[in-house]
């Protein structure tokens, strides 16, 4: 099982390395969002008047849940955003591998379906995880570029905080990777796949608080977004980076929520995938 998994995983990374355009595109999206979208919407409402220090804290708490400006708030949101967008294509890869007969070849071997699935999950999760750190690094870097706002970390992130961030990124990436991989295995043609993905993708991202300033969201959307897995992961990041005073729960609770989402979705996905990949069918 391990040899099969190792061999197939190696294949995934070999293929990735052969496809620099895909890597470039994967990096381009967060780069553009961080460089243009985030900078374009960047406001600091405390600059629009003569506020006392206490007032400033209250305003920032209401708008950006304690982040010092929109950009910092948004940069944390982007980490959740890329976990979704960067896992899209791993399901598409399955579909293309089916079209090109590659999947059939693997299925013709005795390689266990867990290895077939696992190899793709490993490669498919590694990318959003790497991208998440790319996003964080880039956002931090922008602080040092004249004319750009960067991510300003206002809380002290200890080892625990770093681990919590890591766990949030990991859970979110693995969860979406599993989801899209399952779509790819169950669906036979690219059109259907992308239709399904968009149907899932946009609602998930747009009902999360990854991009909107918290204070600008209507109440009902705030309520909905609380249960959104992307929000849960992003909350962990924001609490850790900017302090948790305005959040009703600590990062541990959000991680737990995220874990529950992941467990349920991955559980369902594995049942479906097992059925679809069982030998002789």
């Amino acid at each position: 099982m391990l040899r099969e998994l190792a061999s197939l995983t190696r294949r995934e990374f070999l293929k990735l390395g052969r496809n620099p355009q895909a890597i470039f595109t994967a990096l381009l999206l967060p780069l553009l969002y961080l460089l243009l979208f985030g900078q374009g919407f960047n406001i600091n409402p405390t600059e629009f008047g003569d506020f006392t220090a206490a007032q400033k804290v209250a305003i920032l708490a209401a708008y950006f849940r304690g982040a010092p400006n929109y950009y910092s708030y948004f940069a944390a949101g982007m980490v959740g955003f890329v976990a979704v967008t960067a896992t899209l294509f791993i399901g598409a890869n399955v579909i293309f591998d089916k079209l090109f007969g590659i999947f059939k070849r693997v299925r013709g071997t005795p390689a266990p379906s867990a290895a077939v699935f696992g190899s793709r999950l490993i490669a498919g999760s590694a990318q959003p995880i790497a991208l998440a750190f790319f996003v964080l690094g880039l956002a931090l870097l922008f602080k040092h570029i004249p004319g750009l706002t960067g991510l300003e970390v206002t809380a002290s992130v200890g080892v625990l905080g770093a681990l919590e961030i890591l766990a949030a990124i990991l859970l979110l990436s693995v969860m979406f990777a599993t989801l899209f991989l399952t779509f790819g295995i169950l669906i036979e043609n690219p059109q259907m796949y992308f239709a399904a993905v968009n149907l899932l993708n946009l609602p998930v991202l747009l009902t999360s608080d990854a991009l909107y300033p918290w204070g600008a969201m209507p109440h009902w959307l705030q309520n909905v977004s609380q249960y959104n897995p992307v929000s849960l992961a992003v909350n962990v990041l924001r609490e850790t980076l900017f302090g948790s005073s305005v959040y009703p729960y600590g990062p541990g609770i959000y991680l737990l929520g995220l874990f529950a989402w992941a467990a349920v979705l991955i559980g369902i996905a594995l049942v479906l995938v097992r059925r679809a990949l069982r030998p002789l069918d």
Partner: protein
Amino acid sequence: MQPTQAIHAENLVKVFNGKIRAVDDVSFDVRPGEIFGFLGPNGAGKTTTVSMLSAGLRPTQGRAVVDGLEVGKEPEAVKRRIGVIFQESTADGDLTGRENIQVAAGCYGMPRAEGRKRADELVERMQIADAADRLAKTYSGGMRRRLELAVGLVHDPKILFLDEPTLGLDPQGRNGFWGFIQQLRKEEGLTVFVTTHYLDEADTMCDRLAIIDHGKIVATGSPNELKDRLGGDIVTIKTTAGAPDVTNVLSTLIGVHTVQKQDGSYRVKCANGEPFVPLAVEACDKAGAGVTGVTVKRPSLDEVFLEFTGREFRDEDAPTATDRAVMVQRVQNRFGGRR
């Protein structure tokens, strides 16, 4: 079944979507070490049969035993003993030939070093060593097929399934490919189950054949046996202009089944053409009809097919000799709502 059979198919049936009887009660046995051909026009049910035998598709009814193993019960074990070359190309174009073989080796649980060694051997053997480190998408059609063969052989299978392996190859490529198969059989005693819709291939390359049409096997036997069942050879005799009619004379000769006169020549179906010729010439001479020409023809599989199915072997949708044809077909299969 006798344990001596490499492949035993027993009343195999596959019904797709509850109505398409792609394979309809097919039974046959393949002996160890033989090249067994499955000949039939497009859509006859060849690929479906291969899939059922190679643990890719569960039969609707019937059973298959491969190398003594019940396919329905031990699909994984069967997969370890067989190599399958699918009708469509399955090589990963983004990997080199060598990497394709190594990944396949890993799928059989071989350690990496062993996979590397095996890949080195196989690229040598399949004569793709020079291109082994090039991406497979740059391979020509013939090289691709040889790579497919290398991948299918990576775990040293005892039985090889080839589904239209020469589809889309030019005659030279086809000959080359068959050279490898013959060699493998000779050197390793491999049993080969091969489907084809090329009559000439079935005739010259296979030890025994099953002819399949509309999901049913209509005849089984060696190419010669099948032809013999048509009643032997066809001897055409031409006589001098104005010679007397020798139809009756020829009909009375030993071994003759039928004699047809067609403007100045006689088409004689007889058991064995060659010894018949001197007898026929002598008889014609005696009857005062000088013989000006004789041809002896073994009936071809075309005629066999015609005999057993009542129609011409349809080959109108044979693909052109380009890789693209294979590609297009593959994409159509996929988008055509199969499955």
